[in-house]
């Protein structure tokens, strides 16, 4: 069986997630066809807060649902509860 093709997405982290992860961006390889929810599972090992304290997720600057399918080069942002103003 051939392994599923890999794609690469760019991760952006902000505020409390950024502090918990110790970085503001990273690149993650995911399987072709992977969803935002799959990515959360993948990253939760390194950044548990993404699962224990979930916020919103945006792909290419638009809020999306967990079943959103990722594509090569997507920018995925993890957005804790906003508090601007």
């Amino acid at each position, binding site marked *: 069986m051939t392994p599923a093709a890999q794609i690469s997405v760019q991760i952006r982290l*902000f*505020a*409390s997630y*950024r502090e*918990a992860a110790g970085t503001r961006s990273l690149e993650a390889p995911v399987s072709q066809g992977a969803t935002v929810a799959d990515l959360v599972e993948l990253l939760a090992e390194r950044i548990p807060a993404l699962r224990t*304290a979930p916020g919103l997720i945006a792909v290419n600057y638009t809020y999306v649902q967990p079943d959103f399918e990722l594509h090569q080069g997507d920018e995925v942002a993890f*957005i804790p509860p*906003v*508090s*601007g103003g």
Partner: protein
Amino acid sequence: MFKVIDGPLEGIDLESEVRTDADGAIIVFRGVARRYSRGRDVVHLEYEAYAEMAEKVMAQIGEEIKARWPVSGVAIVHRTGVLEIGQASVAIAIAAPHRGEAFEATEYAIDRLKQIVPIWKKEVWSDGEQWIGWEHEQHQVTSDHSA
């Protein structure tokens, strides 16, 4: 004008950005850093933004406003970085032919910004700090550093 800037908002002229000769009212709202919050003394505030997306979402709020009220111009500018007490974090300017729609649209703009624009505020107290936004959540990502 929908912008995130990494510097003071004081001195930015938003009125000329939004005013047209048809307007009889211009409202400029500024949110400023206050000393007291949730019973604690704030030393300063820190704002962080997902600037590329924040500007896009602020422009979307501008479209929502123009679809609901007959306003001629909307400008929203938010800053990032460290703010001392009294400094402005956000400035919103709205121009309209009449004051009623200008007041309503301004209130909508700041309410909506607080709801959906990816910007975060950290309160820094003399004895700790906290990212704001988790107050109604059971869990917090970062704990209060005052311990």
